[in-house]
């Protein structure tokens, strides 16, 4: 059974992946690199955990996949792209995240002022 911490991590990873794919289709390692670059390395997770998360998003219908030749001449890569449902899920998660963030800011500011 997943605990709260697991759910929180899962939600964070899902949101990060969806956001990374919002404007560009990417493959696994590229998603990781982009998350680390965009967060200045603040958001890190074991690389292996990325792929089960991607599988979960595919299963939910939020992400599609395709194999594509590598532009650097290496092995083909598996690219992920957001579906329409995925975009709606991203927006919902983004709103949810902002609500939590705003609520926590208010709460912490109040506590700090006491």
């Amino acid at each position, binding site marked *: 059974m997943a605990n709260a911490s697991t759910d929180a991590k899962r939600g964070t990873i899902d949101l990060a992946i969806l956001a990374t794919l919002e404007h560009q289709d990417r493959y*696994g*390692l590229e998603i990781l690199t982009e998350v680390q670059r965009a967060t200045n390395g603040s958001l890190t997770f074991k690389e*292996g955990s990325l792929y089960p998360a991607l599988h979960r998003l595919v299963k939910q219908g939020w992400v599609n996949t395709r194999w594509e030749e590598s532009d650097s001449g290496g*092995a083909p890569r598996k690219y992920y792209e957001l579906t329409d449902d995925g975009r709606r899920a991203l927006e919902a998660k983004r709103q949810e995240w902002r609500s939590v963030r705003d609520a926590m800011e208010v709460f912490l500011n109040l506590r700090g002022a006491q």
Partner: protein
Amino acid sequence: MSPVDQYIRRATTGLPNRTRLDTAAELRVHLNERITQYVAQGFDRAEAEHLAVEQMGPAEPVNRRFLGHVFTPRVGWVVLGLLVVASGGWLAGNYLFAPAPTVKNVAVKAEELIPFIGDFQMLQLTLPKRTKALHIAITLGEDGATLSGTNLEHRYPDLRPNQRVSIPLGVGFLHTALASTECGAGNRALVTFGSDHGRSEMCVPMPSEVGSWTFLMQNADNVMVQDVWQPLLLYKPSVMVDEVPPGTRSSWSTPEGHAIVGPRDTWIAVSAFASTAPLNDGDPQAEYPTIGDVVRQYRWVEF
């Protein structure tokens, strides 16, 4: 097997074949790109492989998430092992170390005693495997005469192998004056009953010695595979109760036949109240085992 191959195998094991191949290919591309990056940074191939795998984290949690549940192959093997052990224990308990078929007397609780019966006996039978039914018969002998008897057969259709069942088995004389009067002068009313089959009453001339023997036999293969002879109680007109002393068997003979007809795999407990009278040879098809060696010549005959 390289660290990369090991990681991929452990992370993808248990997945459906097509998914496993697709996922393995994706993980391999990822790891190879990482290795290429580490090599470009100056690590040798082995070091680069190690670092790339290290960066992925433990394979087992990844595998569990791929599978979508915690039933990893390792857990599956453990569960399978437990099932095998449990099954083995059940088989051993029920077959290898199963209790031998026995018949023994057990103590009778006071509330089970029936007042008007001179004595009362409880048998505990440990039934062998393949037991499907049980018959109990009580036969009676009259001193110095051709035996007559009662046949209290009972069938227990729901018996389980190795089951221990307690069978109430009673014999005794009615003490009421009425019963003695109805039987006529010099006779006494003898009552027998087995289990819940009901009871049987008959008039027995006095003096009369009535004893009992119990045996258990199986007709699964049309042969008696085991016989358990156990003296029950010896009754005399004075209602003296005593164990049948050893060595007295030869003076007791089998009662006249009361055929017990049953299907194969039927075990039979017979309480034979035998007399000292010699018995008729009888129809082999209707012949009970006789006491002593003759019992081993008994052959079950299906009708």
